[in-house]
């Protein structure tokens, strides 16, 4: 369970409770099936889930489909990796220097709320409609959460732990590697989780608006050509991709947070 926190499901699930979730899913799908078959919801707008799943099954044989999935994941992955490579070292540098932080705080506060999608037109001009546009957008958008979280993490270094390390004769480099960085790790893990979801949203957005290859573009095309079942099938796939990625990162984050002391800020679960 990644989104609804462990606290909310803290007590171990009793045997009957274990099946509730599955029941919920089955119930929802069944309800939708009935509503659409009974034309309560017009099925040309919203096909029965069974039809959508059938289309989905068909997609699994399509090379084009997998190409789309690959393109989206490429944009997401390359963008996230680049964002990490840029934002984390930058965050470490800024976060460990009080001077740098004071100097850059205001510009960061101004630049940070800029919706990355505002840059789409500029990106189209400069990079065209291909992969580079998508990459740029993802990198720009995904860098911010990582940067901010890394800075927080660096600043949250436990002074007591640092003093203890110094008392044990550890030099500045060793202190950095053994106390500060591990202390910042949970924040970076949180930043990674947030950035991962931002990266996926921006990748799909780029595909939708700019027309780069990928699931977003195919969904848009399906909608324009009234291939409704295909559109829904692709949306479900996008959801599955999103769910797998967010579960993976949330799981990793939890593991890293597991050993960290309880001095956490109130973090939103996005």
């Amino acid at each position, binding site marked *: 369970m990644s989104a609804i926190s462990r*606290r909310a499901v803290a007590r171990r699930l009793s045997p009957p409770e274990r099946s509730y979730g599955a029941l919920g899913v089955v119930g929802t799908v069944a309800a939708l099936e009935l509503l659409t078959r009974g034309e309560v919801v017009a099925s040309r707008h919203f096909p029965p889930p069974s039809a959508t799943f059938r289309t989905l099954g068909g997609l699994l044989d399509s090379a084009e489909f997998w190409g789309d999935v690959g393109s989206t994941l490429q944009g997401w992955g390359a963008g996230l990796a680049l964002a990490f490579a840029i934002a984390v070292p930058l965050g470490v540098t800024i976060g460990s220097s009080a001077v740098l932080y004071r100097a850059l705080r205001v510009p960061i506060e*101004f630049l940070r709320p800029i919706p990355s999608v505002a840059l789409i037109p500029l990106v189209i001009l400069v990079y065209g409609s291909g992969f580079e546009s998508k990459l740029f957008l993802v990198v720009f958008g995904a860098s911010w959460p990582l940067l901010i979280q890394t800075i927080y993490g660096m600043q949250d270094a436990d002074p007591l732990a640092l003093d203890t390390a110094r008392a044990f004769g550890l030099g500045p480099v060793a202190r950095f590697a053994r106390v500060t960085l591990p202390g910042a790790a949970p924040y970076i893990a949180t930043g990674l989780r947030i950035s991962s979801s931002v990266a996926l949203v921006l990748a799909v957005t780029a595909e939708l608006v700019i027309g780069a290859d990928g699931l977003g573009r195919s969904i848009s095309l399906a909608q324009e050509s009234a291939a409704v079942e295909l559109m829904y099938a692709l949306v479900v796939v996008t959801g599955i991709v999103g769910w797998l990625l967010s579960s993976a990162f949330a799981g990793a984050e939890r593991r890293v947070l597991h050993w960290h002391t309880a001095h956490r800020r109130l973090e939103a679960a996005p």
Partner: protein
Amino acid sequence: MRRRLLAASLELGVPVVLVAGWWLWSTRSESFYYPPLPDILSTFADTWLFERVADDVLPSLARLAAGFTIAAIFGIGLGLALGLSRPARLTLAPTVEFLRAIPTPALIPVAIVLLGIGDTMRVTIIATACVWPILLNAIDGVAGIDTTLVETARSYRVRRLDRVRWVVLPAALPQIFAGMRTSLSVGILVMVVSEMEASTNGIGFFVLQSQRTFAIPEMWSGILLLGILGYALNFGFTRIERRVLRWHRGWRASALGAA
């Protein structure tokens, strides 16, 4: 004293230096895509001060406000219900997990199919994007409420409705606000994208349209406006949050001090 002066001058100086740098570089450069900053600023004044406000800015903001409000009402309401009922929460958890993992822009074509191209669609998609952070944080906030608070209320036989209104909701409010803050950013993003994809007015539409017609300074002015709006909305929201949650800061400070 000198340190403070140094710090203050850094804080003011760096942005000034950056803006000056942008100014100089863009005036020197011949690039078509990066017009001189003075041009952008004058276009900004011409376009946005106050001509297009009614045409584009207000509709954008109205959609955002509507979508966000709907998301807040729905998210907090459902969040309360699910937070209070463990069976309901467990039942809906996987479904909610899956739905909220769908990147909202992917749902724009779906919204177009279901609702056509109009403000209903745009407001709906904004609400859809905004609801998840609020809902999930509301659930967390309610389910994670300190049991002593609830027990106290129960021991005084406070009625269920009063308990929810006066104990559960305030206790969960800090977490809900954290969710709303995320929702705001997400909402702005989706508002812009929905206007770029399927709209005939709005700031997002304007920016993309300017790009298509190669009205570059106008495009930049729109980007600048979006940046300012993003900043202003965040700033305003933080102010409101600080006011409403004044008690929370004080309480945590005293709790941490005592602990």
